[in-house]
């Protein structure tokens, strides 16, 4: 059962005088498979669909007919896999977004099986370009390794040498904890303990906060995302953990900061490769999409990633022709890797043989209420990591595509 709540058909092919049958066969179908009703809705969800549609809009008049559809995977691998299978069988050429790593890993497998394209932006597990890499998958915005290296590595080097993790008990949380642990140990630190809690459906984290406190670790590592992270930070403050521990929100994003409010979130450090107010290009992109985003909020990093990934995909499709692109997903991805990327949200970058899109990443500090000059003015830039250093080195991921070539 798929829930397709809106279809938008962007007819550009008609302008070229193609017959309806020709136009139909050459329509590029993009499915945004995302969390529309759960905890990851705000940072992904309808906003991801809007940003994907924006990329399609910018391709109007270039000889492509593009259709964008969307569905809710409810963060369940079985539901997501069913929709993906159905979509690919019904002529969807590329699936975009797919937050929740367990769902994304399933979709990546199906895209490969059916030789279609999977443009991942929302899921974070670095396994998608590691042991589970695929010639049909591109991993755009971020991954657990990059978050671990930036936020985790920075805190470990700044004296945070003992850690206690609160980890969402599924693929993403495990990957994030594993990747952070590596950087902590590299910096000479130790992990003193970890609590894995059931995801979703955990609201109260007080028990884990007290356990973390009792461990006497210096850093509380939150290997979770969305409302779980917000709940953890709120309850960590309530239980006074911040008096002698530092909080590492490893996938903390603008949306959680917004939901916590600056008085609770101030001073936290986080990593995002996209922030709407970073430079002129990101502001220009924000201005183009903002009026159509839910609640008129600025785009979040994953949503921007859907835009960047779709734009690069469509460039590639335009370059090789819709018919060829529809016939062979792996060929499209191979061509995407051969072309440099350039979009307003992430600037210039490239896609590596393992499917990892690389771009610079930024370490941010949440502003104090006094520093913030208006709505959504949340971050001070602390540091920039160049694209080549931000992600896991190609040889270390264990991706079979790399060792073979």
């Amino acid at each position, binding site marked *: 059962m798929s829930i397709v709540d809106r279809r938008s058909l962007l007819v550009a092919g008609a302008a070229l005088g193609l017959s309806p049958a020709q136009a139909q066969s050459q329509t590029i179908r993009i499915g945004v498979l995302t969390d529309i009703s759960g905890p990851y809705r705000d940072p992904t969800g309808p906003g991801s669909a809007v940003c994907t549609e924006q990329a399609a809009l910018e391709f109007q008049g270039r000889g492509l007919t593009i259709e964008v559809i969307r569905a809710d995977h409810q963060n369940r691998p079985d539901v997501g896999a069913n929709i993906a299978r159905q979509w690919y069988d019904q002529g969807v050429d590329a699936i975009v977004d797919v937050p929740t790593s367990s769902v994304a890993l399933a979709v990546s497998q199906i895209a490969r099986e059916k030789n279609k394209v999977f443009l991942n932006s929302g899921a974070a597990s670095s396994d998608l370009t590691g042991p589970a890499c695929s010639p049909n998958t591109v991993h755009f915005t971020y991954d657990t390794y990059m978050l671990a290296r930036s936020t985790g590595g920075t805190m470990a080097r700044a004296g945070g040498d003992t850690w206690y993790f609160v980890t969402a008990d599924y693929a993403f949380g495990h990957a994030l904890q594993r990747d952070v642990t590596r950087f902590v140990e590299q910096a000479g630190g130790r992990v003193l303990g970890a*609590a894995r*809690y059931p995801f979703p459906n*955990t609201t109260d984290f007080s028990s884990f906060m007290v356990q973390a406190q*009792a461990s006497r670790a210096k850093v509380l590592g939150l290997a979770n995302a*969305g409302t779980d992270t917000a709940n953890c930070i*709120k309850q960590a403050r309530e239980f006074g953990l911040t008096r002698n521990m530092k909080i590492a929100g490893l996938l903390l994003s603008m949306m959680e900061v917004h*939901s916590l409010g600056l008085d609770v979130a101030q001073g936290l450090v986080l990593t995002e490769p996209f922030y709407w107010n970073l430079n002129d290009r990101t502001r220009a992109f924000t201005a183009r999409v903002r009026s159509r985003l839910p609640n008129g909020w600025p785009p979040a990093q994953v949503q921007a990633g859907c835009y960047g990934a779709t734009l690069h995909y469509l460039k590639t499709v335009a370059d090789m022709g819709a018919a060829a692109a529809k016939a062979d997903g792996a060929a499209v991805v191979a061509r995407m890797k051969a072309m440099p990327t350039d979009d307003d949200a992430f600037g210039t970058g490239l896609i590596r043989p393992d499917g990892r899109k690389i771009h610079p990443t930024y370490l941010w500090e949440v502003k104090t209420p006094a520093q913030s000059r208006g709505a959504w003015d949340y971050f001070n830039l602390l540091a920039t990591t160049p694209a080549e250093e931000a992600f896991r080195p190609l040889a270390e991921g264990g991706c079979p595509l790399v060792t073979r070539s």
Partner: protein
Amino acid sequence: MDLFGIPAPLLFGQLLLGLINGAFYALLSLGLAVIFGMLNVINFTHGAQFMMGAFVAWMLLNWLGIGYWGALILAPIIVGITGIILERLMIAKLYKLDHLYGLLLTFGLGLIIEGLFRNEFGSSGLPYRIPAELTGAWDLGFMFMPVYRGWVVVVAFVMCLATWLVIEKTKIGSYLRAATENPALVQAFGINVPRMMTLTYGAGVALAAFAGVLAAPIYSVNPQMGSNLIIIVFAVVVIGGMGSILGSVLTGFGLGVIEGLTKVFYPEASSTVIFVVMAIVLLARPAGLFGRS
């Protein structure tokens, strides 16, 4: 001193935290039990009404400048009134039908309410602060106890006790109990049973909203905050015995403690343990621990 490999002070702390979570379960399952006892409706909108309580508190603060203490009184009244409207317009039409119809209607209504709030406010939540009078924490020696959590346990306990007293010891409570047993006979004595049912539903919903206001400062105020709890609370009511008020309250606190201990020994199972208990209780005592078969 260690108990089961865990330092005793840590274990006491976890028992206390379990009790606090149990307070939420008790308050919510109390409302469910009152509604089921009187209306014979399994109110699956309860989670959404809990969430509405938290959101109304946020609205009162941000739109009207009314703080926590005002919200603690006003939000249950406001949400209770929406419950009364809901009962009059829809739920009242289902009393003569099978339980399942009421369950489906209230479940659907819950999803709709949650969806409306999600569209309006997003999924990531809204900030709501602990009132200034209740910030800070006590150092108990074995753990750091936030003042606000202490307040939650006390106020939830008082609320449960008050509800129990009203139902068991007052005249209106005796009408209510009588109407549960035999509505036709009570009506024949000149008591307006339909109105009593409406007010009972309103009161049950107000209890959920009250718990929602209590939860707003410590949990993220988001549209799905209730759906995470409702299934657990439903299990609490089943274990306690459908419609048994004392059973719901005691089971609520008890299961909070069991869940809290699971979070220490095997956190992965903490969302499952309550259902394991439910299965065992249903096998051994199908009417629940305090239910009458």
